[in-house]
């Protein structure tokens, strides 16, 4: 176990260094003088000089990277040029909104994907299996921003049941908060549910054909006990760990979902930053999501080791 952890950490560190290269390298893609690009259309000489000084653009690229990295490891992701606030503070401010959306979306994905995958595997080759596969394919092929628009059209414009956009913090009213978040959570969870369904089906099919399940059936256990107690326990291991890996997909989806439903989260922060040429914020958001993804990958590996006794030994 210890050797495994050390080996995994030895892989994570160079990966993080390369992530930092990629994110720092993004700035080099700006055509022409970065200070001019960031200053926008105003081209105020003082603003340009300020940007040049803040980003140390007159220094060699290796030195700029070293300064940037030194800031990052101390939690300093830079200053937002537009809002004049530390990027780390902005990220922390928006993170709870996106985390709530992501958690609710994951709940939707688990509640739809796992039962559907189990049903599809247990009734393999039946109409249920066919139907579940069609629903999964539908989930994988529907762009979530279009699904969001269609749901607004139905539930907000036509039926008037749910608010079309906006966000209410839970402290200001849990009912209003849930009403505002239920559609975005469904939209975001929909595609993950399809992935979950496919993973669950595949894991269950593998387990259902194993000897110990056959033994459980042979000794006369009820089918419900065979599936719930014996088959699902083993099939759930890869499904749960794969769920953690879907985090990246959730964050990508959150960008569009938050845009459609005007939710002031992480995704909206990066889109607004893109249009305001607030590149420090863009870099900060990408760095945070990539680091979180690497950390979750690591935790998923540990969880996989902990729940699977064969790997532990």
């Amino acid at each position, binding site marked *: 176990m210890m050797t495994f952890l050390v080996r995994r950490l030895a*892989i994570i560190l*160079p*990966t*993080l*260094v*390369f*992530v930092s*290269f*990629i*994110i720092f390298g*993004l*700035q080099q*893609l*700006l*055509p022409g003088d970065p200070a001019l690009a960031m200053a926008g259309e105003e081209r105020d000489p003082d603003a340009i000089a300020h940007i040049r000084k803040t980003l140390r653009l007159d220094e060699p690229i290796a030195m700029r990277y070293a300064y940037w990295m030194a800031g990052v490891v101390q939690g300093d992701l830079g200053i937002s040029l537009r809002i004049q606030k530390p990027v780390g503070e902005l990220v922390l401010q928006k993170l709870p909104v996106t985390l709530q959306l992501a958690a609710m979306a994951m709940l939707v994905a688990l509640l739809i994907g796992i039962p559907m995958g189990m049903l599809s595997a247990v009734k393999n080759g039946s109409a249920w299996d066919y139907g579940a596969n069609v629903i999964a*394919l*539908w989930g*994988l*092929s*529907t*762009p979530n*921003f*279009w699904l969001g*628009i*269609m749901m*607004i*059209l139905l539930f907000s*414009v036509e039926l008037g049941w749910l608010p*079309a956009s906006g966000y209410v913090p839970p402290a200001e009213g849990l009912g209003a908060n849930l009403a505002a978040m239920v559609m975005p959570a469904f939209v975001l969870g929909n595609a993950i549910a399809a992935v979950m369904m496919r993973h669950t089906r595949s894991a269950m099919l593998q387990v259902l054909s194993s000897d110990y399940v056959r033994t459980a059936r042979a000794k006369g256990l009820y089918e419900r006990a065979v599936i719930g107690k014996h088959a699902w326990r083993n099939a759930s291991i890869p499904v749960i760990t794969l769920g953690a890996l879907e985090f*990246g*997909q959730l*964050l*990508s*989806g959150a*960008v*569009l979902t938050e*845009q*459609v439903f005007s939710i002031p989260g992480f995704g909206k922060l*990066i*889109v607004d*930053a*893109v*249009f305001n040429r607030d*590149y420090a914020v*863009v*870099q900060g*958001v*990408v760095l945070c*999501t*990539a*680091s979180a*993804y*690497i950390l979750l*990958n690591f935790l998923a590996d540990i969880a996989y080791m902990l729940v699977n006794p064969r790997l532990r030994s």
Partner: protein
Amino acid sequence: MSAASETALTAAPAVDSPARRAFKRLIRRKGAVVGGIVVILFVAIALLAPWIAPFDPAATDWSAVRKAPSARHWFGTDEIGRDVLARVIWGARASLMAGVISVAIAMAIGLPIGLLAGYRGGFLDGLLMRMTDAMLACPFLILAIALAAFLGPSLTNAMIAIGISATPIFIRLSRGQVQAVKVEDFVEAARAVGNPHWRIALSHVLPNVVPPLMVQATLTTAAAIIAEASLSFLGLGQQPPAPSWGSMLNVAKNFLGQAPWMAVWPGLAIFLVVLSFNLLGDGLRDALDPRHRD
């Protein structure tokens, strides 16, 4: 030659090539056939857009602003009187072009790197894989948004951004395939007879890693079409007034109460083309991967 041996020769069953056998398995799958037909249909629509579009996609008509679908405008008109059907037809060009070119970029970068990493192994493999892991750690769309933001908003830059973001999948896949193929007997034999490394890699290993890459390319095309629509929806892809399904949806969301048709058709087009690529990709995987065969 005796009559008996002639009969034996003519009666011998013709042996199909692996590609032909895979094609036969593919066309036995109804989903893949339907997906393939719809993809071909969309390609035809994109190619024939100048001839089949009923109106100029950029032509405004202030007397026909936000008109519901009718005999004149089958899909209705948008907020400045442009024909939605014409824009959906022309939008197919941007979407399919983005799908195909992004995947071509991803394969053109990913395949040589994967081939090199898998074939050489050792330190170079470790280095290239850590770089690939770093790219995979950045969520696909977020990396594409960041790249498109720094490169500047345009369809070309969106395609480059999507292509670069999709590259690590192809590096990983081709490297894994190369690692499996390079220890096969026929590669050992090629090495034993003194072939140089470049010839073994290109003539013996490469042809055997292509089938899974084709499957991945089909499925990634679907993802790239959604990504292009997403970037255009956010204003980072195709720029107005050029038609794109994503940018049409971006405008349509502001007129849901007054003109819902503006949102229905472009979204349906994205859904149909992505579904078709997914069906085709699933069918190809089943036809090419022995583990998925019935």
